[in-house]
């Protein structure tokens, strides 16, 4: 089966080298070594297929970010009610005195 098949695809070139531990750190995902290895293999297959975007022919295109071409939509700066604080905080894992509680963001001695 080649790239034309709609329901199956066999990669032709392998693999794209991925520093999977670095990517997982960027994504804030605490994965085990064996999980990382599994995802690395799968990403290689998917990226090999996705690399077909590089076969685009013709003149260089603009990048499209919004399908209808909207840019910089602003709303008027008016006061309006916000969500109820207690209702919002009721969903947080830990709160104190109307605040979210988080562990230290920086290391301390």
């Amino acid at each position: 089966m080649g790239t034309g098949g709609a329901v199956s695809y066999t990669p032709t070139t392998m693999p794209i080298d991925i520093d999977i531990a670095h990517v997982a750190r960027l994504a804030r995902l605490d994965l085990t070594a064996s999980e990382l290895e599994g995802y690395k293999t799968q990403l290689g297959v998917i990226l090999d297929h996705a690399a077909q975007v590089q076969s685009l022919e013709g003149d260089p295109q603009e990048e499209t970010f919004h399908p209808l071409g909207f840019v910089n939509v602003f709303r008027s700066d008016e006061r309006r009610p916000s969500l109820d604080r207690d209702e919002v905080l009721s969903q947080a894992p830990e709160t104190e005195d109307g605040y979210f509680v988080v562990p230290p963001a920086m290391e301390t001695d």
Partner: protein
Amino acid sequence: MLHEVTIAEAGKRLRTGEVSSSDLLDAALERASRTEAQLHAYLTIDRDGAREAALVADADLEDGIDHGPLHGIPVALKDNMCTRGVETTASSQILAGYIPPYDATVTRKLREAGAVIVGKTNLDEFAMGSSTENSAYGTSYNPWDISRVPGGSSGGSAAAVAVGSAFAALGSDTGGSIRQPASLTGVVGMKPTYGTVSRYGLIAFASSLDQIGPLSRSVEDAAITLEAIWGHDPLDATSYAGDYPKPSAALSNGVSGLKVGVVKELAGDGYEPAVESAVSAMVDGLSDAGATVVKVSLPTFDIALSAYYLIAPAEASANLARFDGIRYGHRGEGATTETLMARTRAEGFGPEVIRRVLLGTYALSAGYYDAFYGQAQKVRSAIQEDFVRAYQDVDVLVSPTSPTVAFEAGARVDDPLAMYLSDICTIPSNLAGHPAISIPIGLDTQNLPIGFQVMAPALGETIMFQVASAVENLADFAERPILEEVAS
């Protein structure tokens, strides 16, 4: 049977007093109690909230207050749309127990239209998938054959509409997640023009592609539901602020004089013969009904899937950064903010979500952006140009909705790429931001439904529905799934 009637028909009976909204709700809940054990279409059924809404709808009608075509109609919402006071999980463990403090705009609009919200339907986690097998709360099954998937990611909505445990449902469509499950379960599913239905309160997957739309038992019902939920919303910065068409008014206009383009690229290798022959018979039918049919080539469709699987994960990796264990949902253990977040996310996200977050993070990371994400956005421009060229010649484009009928549960779970290829016919419309609709046109030899896709240019809903209605009439698809009843 009352649970099988369309919204249009139920509305007539409501207004003659033949049935009440409470009767309609009873019919839907009765169907749920007979089918849920096998289908698992719903994650939450809000009996109390629905009952109260039905009583209000009945009292209003008695008082002469009529909120329009959805007044008193039981509908379901995909569980990635926020419902104040009712659990909303997006089928993820990371949002287990989450009770939104606000309604999504579509939820608010449905309530204002007098609709009765029956409950929240199952989906692939964060709408990432084509089978509902990625739900953290268990797979939904296809009512036509319960060993098969209902498609995805809006598989719960599709199954509920197919068996009558809702008269219509909302889904969200990022790469085909309304249309593909509609096709696999024999119902109508429609993705509107990007920006016409507010995404406020839709738990985001890929923001430049996500769009909410209806699943229903008829083309007219899809138009009725769409017209109730769309419109400009200042709470969504990508919302369309211009004039909106009125597709429900054009349903009976026929196809005489219209030009229909058959997409060459969406056929051939990988498409099941039963799907291809049903689609080509329908194309012949449109031609006999007075449409001019031509073959159209849109060469960039061949690389649309590749572009999609860079753009959607890239946007997902940014959108899902908000699930960090601080403000809502699951929290893992960690002595620092970073370790807490990393633990929370590894525990709370399922494998497909982790796979796409990693993929998107990689595609956006330093050194790879130009080769992957940037290049994918250029492909998107090229696809839009292909569409523009095609629409200079034709009014609508048609294709199968899915290359295959419903597949067996488990058949593609270990092969992500095979699963991704389920969406090959639906993805181009998402990348272009265009509307598209799937209409059931028949069954294959195993009694599994086949869907026909009609695509139209941005804001071309009127002509799209006009053609869809003609397709519906030609197909005359009246079959319903037969489920063996099991006690629940």
